[in-house]
Structure formats: structure tokens, C-alpha cells
């Protein structure tokens, strides 16, 4: 049987996850990943990788739940296995705190993380400027380890890789600092998304910023000062921590992630094109679930009749 050629554009966490899903599930497909940037230069490589979704306005809730649950379960199986340290995937517990009580105290993903509960009064005492908090255990997936691990898996089933420039999306600039503070074990995130402390394998990521349409990849010193000030207020022990380096990433911003398929008319043929991009700050969080969704769309488009080409 003639093999179907599938091209995956992008080798970040979503691209590689999609490529692995297709290559491992559809033996009649030969998959090639084409990208400009590979680990350690993708956006995900700098991200802390904490699995924590946000609610998108235009995507049915059931679909968003499925995206997150499938990503979580997939990574949990890795965290629970001997591969955990190779893949850079492990459990992380912590707090999300709010200066004002949010309208949605129990978000849709609360059932999928572990042990979701509201913080007790004693726990809130540490954060006098915050009125409400949630405590839970989720997963942390460090792309610096995970992407090479995924690539190995991809190549093991015959996947191919090509280095070439790809498309651009509108950026949401984010800056973080990597600090040495190995005594920190629990994450703390302000519900406004702008201040967070995520303890990692060899360093703690503290952040952050959310600057739409900002393409600057250079470190901004004022941003660093702001981050340090806000994070030290939440976690005083950070005052003595050594800053290892600063990093800037451009989140692929979009109102909603685009996971859908269409047909391109190319050289007299209808070629299926599956989109799986625009995950904003939820790339790692939704990587596997949207990859599985993209796989489904690919399967559909390979077996259904494409619309008649307009002449």
C-alpha cells in the first residue's frame, strides 16, 4: 500500500507531540517534521511547563476538557514510570492565589488535577495581599528534556526531520528568570497569571510578563526587576537566591488554539491541511490532547471525500 506522506510543520511541543501521535498510530503514514527551531531553541524550552489550562472563549468546554485530560493522563503515565527523569516529567504541588475572589472558584480542570481544594486560612496567612487560593497537585513537563525524548520516540518509528523556516503567529512576549533556590518545592502562581514561581529540576523559574504584539527577544531589565520584586513578596526566601539567567519567549498568541482541518488545492490535488497552533501559554498543557485531536482530524480528512475543487 502506498504510504501517505504527512508533513508536520513545527518542532515545538505541539508539533513533536502531533508528529509522534500520527507516526505511532497510523502505520500507513510516513511522517516528516519540518521546522526552523528545534529544542533547546523552541518557545517551550524556556517555559516552566506546569500543566495549568485557561478557559478559551469559543471552544466547546467538553473539547477543552478532553484536551487537558488527555495531556494530563499521558504525562502522568510518564511521570509514574522509570522514564520520568529522562523525559523531564514529574509531579508538582502548589498554590494559585487571588487578590480578589474570582467568579469561577472551581475551574473546569479542577477534576483532572490531583487533590484540588481551596486553601485553608492558615495557608492564606502567608499571603496577606491575597484573599483566596486553590491548592492542587499537577504535572510539570520540562521541554529541555521532553522534546529530545519525544524526538527519540518519533525517530524510533521511522519519523523524519527537516530543518527549514516556518510560519509566524502574533506573539505574547514572556520573560522569566531562572534562579537557584533548591529549597523551594511547591509552586505559587498569582491567578492574574503575571506572577509565578515554579520550582524545576535544576532551577526555579520565576516570572513573568504578558506583552501582546511584542516581538523583542532581548531581556528587559525593568521586567526583571518587576518580576523579582513581585516574586520576593510572595516568597521572601527568594531574596537570597542567585539569578542564573534570564530568558524571553514569544507565546503563539491567538484567541483560541486553531485545531481544525481544511483542504489546499495544490498541483491539481486536494491536500488535507490540519492546523494545530495558537496555544498561547498553554502549549505544554494541551500538547498531547490537541495532538490526538489533530490525529483524528487527519484520519477523517484522509478517508472522507474532499470538497469539489472550484474551477
Amino acid at each position: 500500500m502506498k504510504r501517505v506522506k504527512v508533513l508536520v510543520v513545527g518542532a515545538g511541543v505541539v508539533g513533536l507531540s502531533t508528529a509522534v501521535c500520527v507516526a505511532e498510530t497510523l502505520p500507513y503514514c510516513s511522517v516528516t517534521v519540518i521546522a526552523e527551531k528545534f529544542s533547546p531553541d523552541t518557545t517551550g524550552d524556556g517555559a516552566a511547563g506546569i500543566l495549568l489550562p485557561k478557559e478559551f472563549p469559543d471552544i466547546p468546554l467538553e473539547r477543552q476538557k478532553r484536551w487537558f485530560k488527555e495531556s494530563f493522563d499521558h504525562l502522568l503515565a510518564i511521570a509514574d514510570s522509570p522514564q520520568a527523569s529522562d523525559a523531564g516529567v514529574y509531579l508538582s504541588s502548589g498554590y494559585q492565589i487571588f487578590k480578589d475572589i474570582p467568579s469561577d472558584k472551581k475551574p473546569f480542570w479542577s477534576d483532572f488535577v490531583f487533590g484540588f481544594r481551596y486553601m485553608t486560612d492558615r495557608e492564606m496567612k502567608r499571603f496577606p495581599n491575597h484573599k483566596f487560593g486553590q491548592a492542587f497537585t499537577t504535572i510539570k513537563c520540562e521541554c529541555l528534556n521532553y522534546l529530545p525524548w519525544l524526538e527519540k520516540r518519533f525517530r524510533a518509528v521511522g519519523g523524519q526531520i527537516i530543518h527549514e523556516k516556518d510560519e509566524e503567529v502574533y506573539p505574547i512576549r514572556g520573560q522569566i528568570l531562572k534562579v537557584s533556590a533548591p529549597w523551594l518545592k511547591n509552586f505559587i502562581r498569582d491567578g492574574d497569571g503575571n506572577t509565578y514561581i515554579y520550582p524545576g529540576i535544576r532551577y526555579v523559574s520565576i516570572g513573568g510578563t504578558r506583552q501582546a504584539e511584542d516581538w523583542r527577544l532581548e531581556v528587559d531589565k525593568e521586567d526583571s526587576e518587576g518580576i523579582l520584586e513581585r516574586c520576593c513578596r510572595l516568597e521572601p526566601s527568594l531574596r537570597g537566591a542567585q539569578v542564573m539567567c534570564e530568558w524571553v519567549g514569544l507565546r503563539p498568541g491567538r484567541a483560541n488554539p486553531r485545531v481544525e482541518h481544511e483542504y489546499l488545492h495544490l498541483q491539481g490535488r486536494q491536500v488535507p491541511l490540519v492546523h494545530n497552533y495558537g496555544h498561547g501559554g498553554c502549549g505544554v498543557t494541551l500538547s498531547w490532547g490537541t495532538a490526538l485531536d489533530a490525529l483524528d482530524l487527519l484520519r477523517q480528512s484522509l478517508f472522507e471525500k474532499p470538497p469539489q475543487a472550484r474551477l
Partner: protein
Amino acid sequence: MIQNTQLADMRVCIIGAGVIGLSTAQSIYQHFHSRISPLTIEVYADVFTPLTTSDGAAGLWQPYLYDKGNVQETKWNKETFDYLLSCLSSPDSVKMGIFLQSGYNLCPEPLPDPSFKNAVLGFRQLTKRELDMFPGYSFGWFNTALMIEGKTYLPWLMDWLRQRKVKFYQRKIGSFKELADSGADVIINCSGVRSGDLQPDPELQPARGQIIKVDAPWLKHWILTHDSSSGVYNSPYIIPGSRLVTVGGVFQVGNWNLQNSSVDHKNIWEAACKLEPSLQHARIVEDWTGLRPARSKVRLERETIRSGPTSFEVIHNYGHGGFGLTIHRGCAEEAARLFGQILEQKVLLAHSKSRL
């Protein structure tokens, strides 16, 4: 109330420089240095940090599951937790070796709530999904507790004491009398597992523990397992520290052997890897053996010892088993309270003598 003018020149000699000895020195200084002048505090020990039992412990604040009626101990444990929690926000917290860490207590069958459920933060039962991660365990709890690393805390305490003119002497004390004869007014016995050398105590026994220190920085939770048939700490535990992860455990009562055992190493390692598969890829750094000062309950009380025509006061503060770091502050404060009682009696004695 004791006034400055009534008591001068008190000399307090503390035997032992583990967490119990040093924290007792601290509490006595804090409560009495402004009330007694001069107050001389001396610490005598044959081993200091990093060679004490406290230095090898993983440093997780957690008492045994049940206090068996020793409600005082539950109170002292909670007092210690609250004290350490208050230190967290101080600029010294990192230098003290204190930080928060969450984790799992796993049991093979349902058990009553533990003594520490109200002391720790966010105590709750484990959900079924969480228990699915740990085959063989069908019940358990999750909470956030404190870590207090002896290797950091003890040097911090010694610095704190040195700045306040407490003196340290490296010397094995042969008997209480030896110190009393040299002029000690009060002796505080914090000699841990070797208290029996100073005064026989059949209730005190070593409970040997061996641990393996590994490099596994992706682990961010402590995991303790409980097995009522094998007994406390004779079941695997994994406790990440600020640099390395401590893997245990054994609890061998009556075993004085300070050498690492390869049999224990193998058993500990196999059980821990079953509990946490990712450990298989961790780099093993070293083994360590320590002797917990096990006793049916902590001995924290006064004793007046006659020596010929005179007598001297001893405060015993030993027998903290595997929970020395967990209970240290509560016991130190209680020892300071007992010290206060001794002072009251001396004041009364001085009064009655002056009336003759």
C-alpha cells in the same frame, strides 16, 4: 518573679550538641539572659555538627502517626511546627535550613487520623486517583509540612549561640558529678542515644537507621509508607532535601552498629525503586547510619542528685527517637520552664537563708 539582683552568676552546662542540646541552650538564653547576670551557658559534646545524629536525619517534620497517650509530645510537636512556620518568613529561613514541602503518607489499609493532622497545613485524605500511583497502598494522606535540615540548622544555631557568648567544649563528659564538681549550677542532659553512659536507663535503646542519599532533583514530594506489621520507619520512605534525596528506612532496635550494611542498602533501594520507579536513574551519592535515641516516651524532667553533703540539679532532655527535629523546640521551651522552676527554688532558698 525572679529579679536580677537576687541571683547572680549562674552556670548552666549542657551535655550534647545535637538539635536538642543546642535548642535547649537557645531557649534558656532567650528566657533568662535578661533576668540573670551573668548567665554562663556552656555546651559540652564529643561530636558536633556535621557528625551528630541530627545531621544525618532527612529533616522532615513529622511525628509518629499516634502518640499512644503521650499528649505532651503532641503538644511539643505542634509548638515546634508553629515556631518553624513563623521562622519561614524571616530573612534567615534559608540559613536556618527551613522550607515547606508537601507529600504523601501511604498505608496498606485505612487508619485513624494521625496525631499531627491539625498541626500540618492542608491535611486531607488521598483520592483514589492519587492512590493509583502507588500500587500496594489503598489509603493515605496528603499534607504540606516543614523541612528542617540538621546540616544547616545546627551550624545556624551554633552561630546564634556563639554571638551570644555561649561557649563550646569538645569533650566526652564521664559523669554528671564531673560537671557538678567543676561548679555547674544546673546540668542539662541532652546526650541522646548515649545517655545510658551517664545514667543507666533500660528504657533507652538505639534504633538504628540507615539511609541512602541520591541525586534526584525532579522529586518534589516526600513519600512515607506505613506498615503496621513491620513497624515505624521499617518501611520505605523517600524525602527530597534541598540538595539530595534521602531514601530509607530501617528501624533496628538494639543495634549499635554504626557501619553501613550492604544488605540494608539493597533492601532499602529495592523497596524505594518499587515505590518511585524514576529513582532507578538517580545517582547514588552515599550511605549513612545513625542511631535514633528510642524510648517509650521522651524523658524531659528534673532530677536532684545528691553528692555527699550537697546536691545538684539535672534536667534530662533525651529519648526523642526518630522525631528529635520534629519536637525540639517544644522540648527546649519545656526544659527552659523546668530551669525556671529550679531558679524559683534557689531564690526561695536564698531568701530563707538570708533570714537566719
